[in-house]
């Protein structure tokens, strides 16, 4: 049986369908999860998709953090459940304190939408193990508040522990400190990423299929577990 990967839909989520499709193309069984339901339906992993949960009111991810599904998810993530937060999902993971730091308005003040080159910096996480260390990929990026910030001590800690999983190449699109595009927690089961691998899983619809390994990585780790 294929591993079951939950995709949470919040009011204002946009990329939940693409995330579910990416899971399916990678060989997994996508399971729809609902923000208002604290039942994780016994899934083996969870994707928090991109979009504008609760209209980005207050701060991006600030209200989603208190949704019933997040109560269950925070505990499960602390227990080792693999969780990938993409874009708004990354913002929710930071607001939930599952990942350190925060995402702030792009330094350009413009919403940025482009195919972005990244370097995969860490392949020890549950979501990046199918990449080669140092591999360069191109996947879509689209955000208005994607500037990753944290204090210097936290940035040094993330770098020192190899917890920066991906970095922007060529252009830093949003003013992220140290060109950080994605990070992981200490254990490696929780990953937050500002660009969108779920939009780069098929030649027909994406700039590449470079995003697919995020989804095959977690399936590989679940099957081998």
């Amino acid at each position: 049986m294929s591993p079951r990967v939950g995709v949470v839909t919040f009011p204002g989520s946009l990329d939940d369908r693409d995330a579910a499709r990416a899971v399916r193309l990678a060989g997994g069984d996508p399971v729809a999860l609902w923000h208002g339901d604290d039942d994780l339906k016994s899934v083996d992993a969870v994707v928090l998709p991109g979009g504008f949960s609760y209209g980005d009111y207050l701060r991006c991810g600030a209200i989603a953090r208190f949704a019933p599904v997040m109560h269950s998810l925070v505990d499960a993530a602390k227990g080792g459940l693999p969780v990938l937060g993409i874009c708004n999902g990354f913002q929710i993971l930071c607001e939930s304190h599952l990942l350190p730091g925060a995402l702030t308005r792009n330094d350009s003040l413009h919403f940025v939408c482009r195919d972005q080159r990244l370097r995969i910096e860490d392949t020890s996480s549950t979501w990046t193990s199918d990449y080669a260390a140092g591999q360069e990929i191109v996947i879509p990026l689209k955000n208005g508040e994607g500037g990753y910030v944290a204090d210097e001590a936290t940035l040094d800690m993330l770098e020192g522990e190899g917890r920066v999983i991906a970095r922007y190449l060529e252009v830093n699109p949003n003013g992220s400190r140290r060109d950080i595009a994605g990070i992981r927690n200490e254990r490696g089961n929780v990953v937050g990423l500002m660009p969108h691998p779920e939009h780069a899983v098929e030649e027909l619809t994406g700039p590449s299929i470079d995003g697919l390994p995020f989804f095959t990585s977690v399936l590989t780790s679940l099957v081998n577990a």
Partner: protein
Amino acid sequence: MARVVVDVMLKPEILDPQGRAVQGALGRLGLSGVTDVRQGKQFVIDIDGDLEGDRYELMHTLAEELLSNPVIEDYTMRVVEEAS
């Protein structure tokens, strides 16, 4: 009846691109000498009854955990009106 005012500002070390854009506009509109602009949020919260003891503490907690993000923001909270 109590009125609570919570002001939330980005920490001084966090870049505020919106404030910077406003600073530029002020200069373009003829106001010289503007050295810095920071943009924040203000919440005005009216509450029935007195805001004392545990409720006051909870308001502080929520100002820190919901209304602001302590990673990037500071908040100040004050009770401005306590007429019943």
